[in-house]
């Protein structure tokens, strides 16, 4: 890694009662990188995301975002600091339109203050107009523009994954955590997804990608970190990692367990 890390986890541990889901895991994601995070089911990848995104508080360890400690910041403060996340099982707002789903993600909205609707309606209207335009652009980039005014519940599983990505894009994040974006997405939509992630990355956005689809990981990721039993197992290029006997054993062991 040549650039300084934009997102860093230092010795993160998370215990749920007796289960240690993440066990002293460290990780550094370089600025502009697409880093893959792989590992057998139950390795602790999703918990790692929850820790980075602040929805789960670590038992111990530290998290740094652009060099600044955010360990104790609540989850709702992370996106405005530049860290966006998607969910393994998409969580759209089903009764809201796609545009509204995206509009919600914009940070620092005047209209989200209760008195503002009475005090500065014009400013809100102007902000909303600009944001709606941007939302439609992002939706069209994700091939969702035809459904822009439909409620999100009409989307297919694959489209929901695209909506999740579209939604965090609305906040102009510096780092995006993607949890298994390819799961349940049909092959042609997957190509779209891969292409869009690449395009977004080309604008300087960093990605941390959890994915079981090895083809996607190999094509996208500059570097791969392997997790097993809540800890860092090894890291390297796709080729290095796939030849590592520890990785093969972890997957086989995971399958047997």
């Amino acid at each position, binding site marked *: 890694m040549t650039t300084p890390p934009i997102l860093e986890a230092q010795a993160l541990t998370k215990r749920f009662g007796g289960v240690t889901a993440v066990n002293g895991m460290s990780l550094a994601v370089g600025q502009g990188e697409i880093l893959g995070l792989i590992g057998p089911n139950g390795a602790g990848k999703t918990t790692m995301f929850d820790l980075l995104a602040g929805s789960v508080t670590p038992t111990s360890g530290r998290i740094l975002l652009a060099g600044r400690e955010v360990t104790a910041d609540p989850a*709702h403060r992370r996106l405005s600091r530049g860290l966006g996340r998607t969910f393994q099982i998409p*969580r759209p*707002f089903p009764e*809201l339109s796609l545009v509204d789903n995206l509009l919600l*993600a914009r940070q620092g909205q*005047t209209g989200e203050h209760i008195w503002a609707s009475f005090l500065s309606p014009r400013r809100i209207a102007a902000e909303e107009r600009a944001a709606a335009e941007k939302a439609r652009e992002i939706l069209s980039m994700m091939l969702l523009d035809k459904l822009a005014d439909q409620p999100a519940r009409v989307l297919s599983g694959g489209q929901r994954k695209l909506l999740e990505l579209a*939604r965090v894009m609305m906040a102009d994040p510096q780092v995006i955590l993607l949890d298994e974006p390819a799961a349940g997405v049909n092959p042609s939509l997957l190509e779209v997804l891969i292409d869009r992630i690449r395009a977004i990355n080309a604008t300087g956005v960093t990605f941390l990608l959890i994915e079981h689809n090895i083809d996607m990981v190999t094509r996208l990721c500059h570097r791969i970190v392997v997790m097993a039993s809540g800890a860092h197992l090894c890291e390297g290029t796709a080729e290095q990692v796939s030849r590592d006997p520890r990785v093969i054993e972890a997957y086989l062991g995971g399958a047997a367990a």
Partner: protein
Amino acid sequence: MIDLIGYGAFFLSTALIFAIITLGLNLQWGLTGLFNVGIAGFVAIGAYTSAILTTPDTPDRIGGFGWPILAGWAAAMALTAAAAGFTGFATLRLKSDYLAITTFGVAVVVQLAALNAVGLTGGPFGVAFIPRPFAGLQSDPLAFNLVNLGIIAAVTLACYLALERLSRSPWGRVLRALREDERAAISLGKSARSYRIQAFAVGGAVMGLAGAVQAHFIGFIAPDNYIPTLTFQVWAMLMVGGSGSNRGAVMGAVVVWAVWIGAGWLTSALVPVDWQARAASLQIVAIGVMLCLILLGRPQGFFGPRRGRGME
């Protein structure tokens, strides 16, 4: 004829006071999904606040502040907002049924306080001589009723317009998002705690205002006005009118109040006098039946936004 107009004005005034309460509930439940079953308690706080602050001096009761009516209403809104906001804060970790039980408890506590804090609330005897707006017109009952209706209609309209603006604003969009998926909303930078407290407080302020307006409309309040039946009526109004719609909240209040009064007439006409006390519960049955019919035939109510699966 004059009697009929007077009665109509009285009926509509009462229905519109319910409409204001229902508008407050619509913000909390229809928009945000907060299961508030303590409505009667918040209405009572508003009513007592304004009554205590505006009434003249009374022996054995704190008071004699003699504030102007509008100041009483503003104080009622502020105090109820604070009480509801505090309830929201204290119940941050509670969801659905647990939240319902807790808010119900709050209402019981408020009613018990009204009943027992004799030096403040007059206890079971309540507060009387609450000043009525335009009391000078009282010698002409028809004009007086119509003026009262006008005032209540204006307050209802103001609440409706304010809540309509709020629910269409980005602020209201956040409340909707929190109702649909709190975790997703948090991941998008929304503080679930802060908005939940705000929704409780704003809805509570509206309920408190309704309580205050009603106190000055009747001129007398007592703890039995604020029993769980009130909460039940308001919930029925929101369900019938359509949860999520401010228009529905107003319409539902008028329709359900009409059914309530109609059922009351029927029982008093058909049931022998000795049984009348018990027959009063038939009003609740009538509302219950109506609710069942609505939920079967049109689950979203008259004006509620349609929800469900599938493409349109």
